[in-house]
């Protein structure tokens, strides 16, 4: 299925892009993060991140659907 992925901050730099449309067999955000870490060598462990699906915080085990927009959220530093 096709997913839309957006990258921010450290992960944007490590992926070398701010977004992409990806054909993937990963069914959950957790699986997807593993797949993308293999591809891009992300240095952050999944336990350090949150994940959003379709612009809302999500569970890592949520079943992804075709067309979902996924954003991995590194440790935040606003303020």
């Amino acid at each position, binding site marked *: 299925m096709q997913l839309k992925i957006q990258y921010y901050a450290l992960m944007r730099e490590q992926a070398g892009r701010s977004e992409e449309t990806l054909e993937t067999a990963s069914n959950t955000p957790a699986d997807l993060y593993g797949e993308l870490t293999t591809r891009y060598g992300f240095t952050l462990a999944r336990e350090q991140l949150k994940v959003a699906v379709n612009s809302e915080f999500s569970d890592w085990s949520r079943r992804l659907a075709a067309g979902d927009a996924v954003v991995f*959220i590194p440790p935040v530093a606003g303020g």
Partner: protein
Amino acid sequence: MMRFRFTQTAIDTAQARRELLDPGAGGYASFEGWVRDHNEGQEVTRLEYEAFQELAVKEGERIVAEALRRFPVKHALCIHRVGSLDLSDMAVWVGVSSAHRGEAFDACRFIIDEVKHRVPIWKKEHYRSGDSGWVNCERCAAAPHHAHEHDHEHRHLDEPTASHS
């Protein structure tokens, strides 16, 4: 009017303050976060802020709504900068009006603390040495067992990683 928003340009505090006016308010408390010239032993020369704005404005609105439920205040507003900032630039502004001062200070503190820990905003520091780094991301990448320190449920009130407080 949105009670949490981003701006690419300098925060207009005079305008923001006017949005808090209320005949029943006896005053207001505000907090300004500024870009500081040092962090964790490094000399900082400038900052870049980046946000996942679609989710950030939702989470920011939830924080302000929580503050309005928890504290008997009139109005509250938070504005955050994104983009490139120089030393002493204002990165964030929080304002709360209320009948009495105590709850205005409390709600203001609550909002800035929650924003720092929950809203998807990232800060890249540029150092005098020529290096740069994403705050809370580079060091913890080397020590992932410290990840829980960034969870707002377990935070320290005066976290040492902030560029100002």
